[in-house]
């Protein structure tokens, strides 16, 4: 399933071999930064990456994530308004 999971780079364990510690909900695992490192490995501390089979395969683009989420949130808010309206309507009808 190409199981990939967002994890945060919390430590550099072996800079020469580009190895770091990634954390997912408190679970830590050593991963290779090879696919995502460009400058010094330390620069990635605190960054989130998509972790797959022990490699940080892709850095997560926080802005893109926020953009997608914002769109979804807008949808959700619109939906809540709709639902509230529907509930109000139903209540009115029930009272009638």
């Amino acid at each position, binding site marked *: 399933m190409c199981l990939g999971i967002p994890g945060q780079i919390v430590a550099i364990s072996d800079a020469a071999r580009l190895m770091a510690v990634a954390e997912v*909900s408190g679970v830590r695992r050593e991963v290779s930064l090879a696919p995502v490192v460009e400058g010094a490995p330390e620069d990635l501390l605190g960054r989130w990456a998509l972790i797959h089979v022990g490699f940080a395969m892709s850095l997560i683009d926080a802005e893109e994530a926020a953009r997608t989420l914002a769109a979804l949130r807008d949808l959700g808010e619109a939906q809540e308004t709709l639902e509230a309206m529907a509930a109000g309507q139903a209540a009115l009808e029930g009272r009638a």
Partner: protein
Amino acid sequence: MLRDTHVTLAHGGGGQAMRDLIEEVFTAVFAPPGMEDQARLEDPRLTVPGARLAMTTDGFVVTPIEFPGGDIGKIAVCGTINDLAVGGAEPLWLSAAFIIEEGCEVALLRRVVASMAAEAQAAGVRIVTGDTKVVGRGAADGLFVTTTGVGVIPPGRDLAAGRIRPGDVAIVNGPLGDHGAAILAARGDLALSTDLRSDCAALGHLMEAVLAAAPGVRAARDATRGGLAAALNEMAGAAGVGIEIDEAVLPLRAEVRGLCEILGLDPLYLANEGTLVLFVPPEEAPAALAAMQARPEGAGAAIIGRATETRPGRVEMQTLFGGRRIVDMLVGEQLPRIC
């Protein structure tokens, strides 16, 4: 006198070395009554008219032998106490049989034995008889412990899965999957590290407290191997009821969730060693829940679902996302899914 730091086959050979091992490592700590081939026991509760004797056994094979939150000895005592307790029995006596791999550290054995003795004492149970066998290197995985428990079921008490009725409320005493997740991480072959600890605990006192507060408890199971899913399926099958649980209220630690995401596992199938699920009539549910929450081993207790008339024998879950899915028995072993 026992001079060796590691167990050798000589310690299982029936000679002096074995006698030394047994006397210094085991009987010195367990202090069983007498030194005959069998313990000889009496308890007034057993002779009360209508009382029944309860007996259960389990083999314990956990790897690693010591892990965050416990060790094989602690599980061996707690697991068997729990199998008595979930039937409403008051645990009285335990036997403990050890199968030891050649090369096992004597110091490890001492730690395991101390852990068993402490756990038994805290639970008010005596380890009254035992056995040790030593097998050659490679013929066992360090240490296996089999415990058998004998207890007494007071007259009139009858917990049985078959007694669960639609409408009964399902309660667990704490977070799910801690043991399975802690063990998986502790094994080290997946190189995952966490702060998780096994939930390993004896639940005899908890069960007595719940039964005092909610005498109508229908049935209880400890959700060990196969996790909550196995316990619920077994109960649904035995009672001929459906069971519905709600994903949103399942107590789950963040790290257990994380580990499951990383390895493609389902926490409903992770093993527990100090987690029981019980069914009570709805009117007693608040009392049962409160009685649990009043004890440390029930601090995380939660109502997780109920028995239903629909789909007898089937367990279903309302997903967080608003869908429904069947929670079946595990097929085969749960394997990490990665690629």
